[in-house]
């Protein structure tokens, strides 16, 4: 009965590689997010999709490309990985723009380590 799930949980890779992280939610939400949490626990939003449409795109290198095949899935693809990309990436979802006073539900996170 997992609400927001992410795969993989851990990802260790070499600099320069390309990798993807997947996120799925079974809450029926129509808005999904990607956040990056650095080593100091600071959480910063990267992207948001509403019904497969990109609505938030923060200042993120264009090596990061989100893709939403449907409203229950939001994947994050990262090209040419760099050491500074090492972080924990969280997916989150919420009940959409029409209901603004709703909290976001977070996934368990994907710990990315770039060597």
């Amino acid at each position, binding site marked *: 009965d997992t609400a927001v799930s992410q795969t993989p949980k851990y990802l260790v890779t070499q600099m320069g590689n390309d990798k993807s992280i997947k996120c799925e939610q079974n809450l029926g939400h129509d808005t999904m997010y990607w956040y990056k949490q650095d080593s100091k626990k600071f959480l910063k939003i990267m992207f*948001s999709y509403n019904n497969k449409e990109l*609505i938030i795109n923060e200042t993120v290198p264009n090596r990061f490309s989100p893709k939403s095949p449907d409203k229950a899935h939001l994947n994050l693809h990262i090209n040419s990985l760099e050491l500074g990309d090492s972080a924990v990436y969280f997916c989150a979802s919420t009940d959409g723009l029409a209901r603004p006073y709703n909290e*976001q539900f977070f996934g368990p996170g994907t710990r990315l380590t770039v060597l």
Partner: protein
Amino acid sequence: GESVGLHLPTLSVQEGDNSIINCAYSNSASDYFIWYKQESGKGPQFIIDIRSNMDKRQGQRVTVLLNKTVKHLSLQIAATQPGDSAVYFCAVRNYGGATNKLIFGTGTLLAVQP
């Protein structure tokens, strides 16, 4: 721009004591405030929220206080237990645009001593 900060990065309390975690925000247009708890190795988990038209809201052992005059938010945890040990984040949202974007504070580590 928006900034959200915390007064205390680490808070150590004795089991059974009350805990108070503080948060300051900068944008007076902020209309919705949320506290999240993040346990080690897990994602943030919703604790309690409050809208800008309220100044206090209570949950089970938790109370959130909002002072819009000084743009300050606090989370009070009554009778703190070891299971409350975690990093606590405040998050604020400025409604009125086309997005539901939360700005997170830097987090406070709550350490409960048995």
